[in-house]
């Protein structure tokens, strides 16, 4: 078996200037892995992965920790959980388990960069193991299990889409990393980075003293952490924080409590004080508060503690910078290998979904969004109208293979593009999964060798053949074509419309759909948002959309047609959905004729041209006595599903999409 590493020089953790929150979260997690991992959210180029790798390197070289195990995005399932050892099976005729990344990570840190882009199935494998501390494997006639205690660190750029709330919740802490805005600090960052790129050894040895004292401090804190106690009134305080911030479930409480203990140990104390809780609570809450945009923290504090705020904060900062040596405590046990909350251990039997090809584990209504509805706190975020729980838009098991395959339809990639995630014995497209085929054939090699004559070392039979299951991350593409003109603003229809759009977006976000927005107003139509998986961007832009001007419906249709052509060119098998939010009025034509007739004629052509696209027209005409129902005409020209203004509840639109998908 080839497990081969490439050495590279790693930027020292101690040399990272600024980013104190991120560094603190990583350190706390290293002190007490039971915290349950760290998720680092932040824009590109903010040294997220540099910090993770730097800390792992520090802990390895100074504290003798296991090396960092990195999970690349293109990993296949067998490499993560483990599989039958093909070489041993072929050569020795033995069924041997070849451990995967989860085994390698045992006792150390498992790092997933861009964790929001990792295949769902893999994410679940990892999180299950992280939670139970155990990896159970049942595949290819092999049944085994092994300890998989590791602390999980993930990083992600929210621009690229969110992690599902269920997955977010499983990370103990999370931090939001921003670019530093202090000029002197940036200069220092620049200087060090350039020096590192020119001569890595110089920086590494230049920071050796800092590195040592940091690792010593971590080691001491590790010894101290199990002895740290939390006074009972502070336990109550923790519970209150969770409650005030509306983060139901015990995970937040546990994370705060454990992180506070680690923080106390990091500061050399064996008892938790308010300052510890204040320092860590934001990290435990950031990803658990149920808002689409990152919430504003810190949490509100009980009145009796508020007077300490300023002092505690500054004290903490000082402690961070000067790194005083905490009182020496000897405890060889420490808590290096992640102890796991045993009450969390899920039923092992439902973990071995070896083929969830068509079964969607996400089909249950998403309770986290459901709770949004009755939470008055959310109003300010979605003041555009109440969003609501969206029933999952899951189709019947998709019988048509196509490329665009997100969570929504679970259809798999039919051509050989897309990510190979696992294999199947079902034969469909001749996309041979050689590794899986060999593993399937391996156990029989000894007997076959005796009966078959061949020059090949491996005897493969028809029944061994496995094909690749590939998945493409992109789900469907939803193209919103929105009337941004005065005719909608006048009737406050925009509020309803935006609510509808946001609800669809929230659903799209969880299904990994891509969204694009075209707005027509004034004299033309613009692509306000090119296809993106960042629903955050889409929602932000739709809520801030200005209203006014004339209504160039034809231009909107034209722009939409162009975009659909591009989408088609990029992925000919995609089946985008175009959602038009309009009252059907048009008063700005492209040519000479009447604007309205021109739009209808154009709509007919568009429908002809884009047969792979499903159209939905949401009539935004103000309900009332006199109605023109122009949008209905548009809908029939487009061969679209049509929505009465009376039915303009966002829920209905979602249901229509559900029927289509």
């Amino acid at each position: 078996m080839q497990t081969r590493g490439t050495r590279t020089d790693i930027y020292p953790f101690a040399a990272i200037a600024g980013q104190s929150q991120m560094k603190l979260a990583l350190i706390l997690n290293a002190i007490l892995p039971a915290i349950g991992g760290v998720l680092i959210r932040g824009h590109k180029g903010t040294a997220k992965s540099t910090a993770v790798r730097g800390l792992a390197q520090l802990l390895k070289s100074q504290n003798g920790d296991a090396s960092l195990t990195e999970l690349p995005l293109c990993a296949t399932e067998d490499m993560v959980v483990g599989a039958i050892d093909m070489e041993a099976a072929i050569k020795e005729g033995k069924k041997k388990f070849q451990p995967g990344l989860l085994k390698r990570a045992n006792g150390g840190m498992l790092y997933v960069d861009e964790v929001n882009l990792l295949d769902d199935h893999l994410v679940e494998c990892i999180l299950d193991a992280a939670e139970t501390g155990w990896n159970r494997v049942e595949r290819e006639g092999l049944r085994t299990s092994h300890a998989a205690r590791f602390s999980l660190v993930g990083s992600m750029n929210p621009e690229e889409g969110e992690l599902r709330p269920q997955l977010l919740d499983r990370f103990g802490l999370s931090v939001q990393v921003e670019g530093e805005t202090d000029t002197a600090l940036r200069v220092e960052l620049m200087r060090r980075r350039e020096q590192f790129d020119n001569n890595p050894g110089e920086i590494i040895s230049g920071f050796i003293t800092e590195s040592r004292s940091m690792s010593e401090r971590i080691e001491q804190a590790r010894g101290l952490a199990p002895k740290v106690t939390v006074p009972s009134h502070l336990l109550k305080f923790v519970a209150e924080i969770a409650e005030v911030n509306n983060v139901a479930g015990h995970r937040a409480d546990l994370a705060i409590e454990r992180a506070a203990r680690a923080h106390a140990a990091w500061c050399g104390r064996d008892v938790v004080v308010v300052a510890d809780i204040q320092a860590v609570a934001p990290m435990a809450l950031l990803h658990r508060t149920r808002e689409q945009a990152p919430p504003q923290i810190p949490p509100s504090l009980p009145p009796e503690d508020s007077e300490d705020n300023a002092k505690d904060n500054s004290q903490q900062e000082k402690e961070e910078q000067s790194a005083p040596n905490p009182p020496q405590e000897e405890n060889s046990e420490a808590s290096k290998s992640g102890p796991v909350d045993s009450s969390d251990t899920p039923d092992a039997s439902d973990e071995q979904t070896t083929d969830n090809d068509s079964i969607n584990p996400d089909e249950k209504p998403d309770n986290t969004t459901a709770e949004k509805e009755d939470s008055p706190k959310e109003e300010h975020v979605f003041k555009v109208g109440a969003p609501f729980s969206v029933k999952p838009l899951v189709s019947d098991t998709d019988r048509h293979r196509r490329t665009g395959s997100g969570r929504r339809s679970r259809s798999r990639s039919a051509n050989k593009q897309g990510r190979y995630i696992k294999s199947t014995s079902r034969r469909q497209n001749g996309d041979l999964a050689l590794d899986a085929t060999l593993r399937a054939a391996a156990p029989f090699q000894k007997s076959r060798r005796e009966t078959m004559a061949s020059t090949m070392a491996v005897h493969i039979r028809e029944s061994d053949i496995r094909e690749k299951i590939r998945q493409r991350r992109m789900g469907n593409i939803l193209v919103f074509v929105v009337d941004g003109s005065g005719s909608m603003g006048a009737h406050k229809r925009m509020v309803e419309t935006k609510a509808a759009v946001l609800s669809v977006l929230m659903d799209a976000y969880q299904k990994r759909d891509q969204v694009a927005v075209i707005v027509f107003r004034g004299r033309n139509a613009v692509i306000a948002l090119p296809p993106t998986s960042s629903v955050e961007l889409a929602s932000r832009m739709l809520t801030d959309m200005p209203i006014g001007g004339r209504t160039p419906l034809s231009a909107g249709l034209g722009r939409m047609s162009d975009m659909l052509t591009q989408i088609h060119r990029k992925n000919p098998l995609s089946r985008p959905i175009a959602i038009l939010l309009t009252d059907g009025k048009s008063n700005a034509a492209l040519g000479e004729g009447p604007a309205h007739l021109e739009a209808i004629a154009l709509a007919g052509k568009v429908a002809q041209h884009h047969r792979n696209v499903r159209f939905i027209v949401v009539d935004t005409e103000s309900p009332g006595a006199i109605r023109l129902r122009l949008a209905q005409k548009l809908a029939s020209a487009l061969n679209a599903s049509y929505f009465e203004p009376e039915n303009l509840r966002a829920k209905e639109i979602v249901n229509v999409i559900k029927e289509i998908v």
Partner: protein
Amino acid sequence: MHHQTFIADRPGFPFSAIVGQDKLKMGLFLNVINPTISGLLIRGEKGTAKSTAVRALADILPSIEVVKGCPFQCDPNAQASLCFQCQSRATMGEKLESVKRKVKVVELPLSATEDRVVGTLNMEHALKHGEKKFEPGILAAAHRGILYIDEVNLLDDHVVDVLLDCAAMGVNTVEREGISFSHPAKFTLVGTMNPEEGELRPQLQDRFGLCVQVEGITDPHQRVAIVKRRAAFEADPFGFTKQFEAESVQLSQQIDAAIHNYGDVVADDDILFDIARLAIEAGVDGHRSDIVMLKTAKAVAAFHNRKQVSMDEVAEAASLVLPHRMRRLPFDDVLNMGSKKVG
């Protein structure tokens, strides 16, 4: 791996015969001078001959030392970043034999599957010997070279992920198909795109150190020159290339000298502060642009054989580094039509 590189049976169009496109050329030079600037994104409409310059680049690329026979073209002088094989050979006390060869331009076709890009299980070896062996992919071939992607905005999303993973560490980590393997993969990413066909994922965009916007040439004299040179090249590639040989040699020498001088170029504190301020004011994400600007300014100075970075170099660097990183509000277009509201 011959099909990945531009190996032509006749000479390619000489780089020095390309008319105009100074900014594009400069962007390429700077990346050659300091490969850690990490790439050039060339944006432009159809028919602006974006790829001509990249394909011709091979002409003027410098030579590097590689370990003989290593599929990852390890640098024999960089002990810290040797591949597994070279590492163990070096540890055994073996002297790694090195050869000199030109920096390669390796093309990543849009149709490339993820397997092909990262590397995969060697099928023949597996069937014949019942053993797993890693078959290096495009990323292995691109190590220490230029990875060229035409129409990079149309690249499959999963392949983009892989590039990002790889660019972050300069290492390609493979955990798939029963293979667990990693090898160094540091490359200069050069991509072309027509923005009309869709934007690039911001994260990938950020990985391109520099970006140039290529416009069609409007000057009639230049246009005539382009057509004439093209025709002359088609008629007699060898003769034409010979005509430009002196210029090509001179350009190569200038670049070699710049590579040599780069280490001596200094940037004062004032300059560093100006760079940081520029980046902060531009509102770019993260800190990558600062360091890229510094390196680019130094490379500009080195190219002009200057020892000191001045604001001129910083300005030139900023124009290549900042525009594609400015946080582009997706609704800017909309806002331009109406009230400015979003902060």
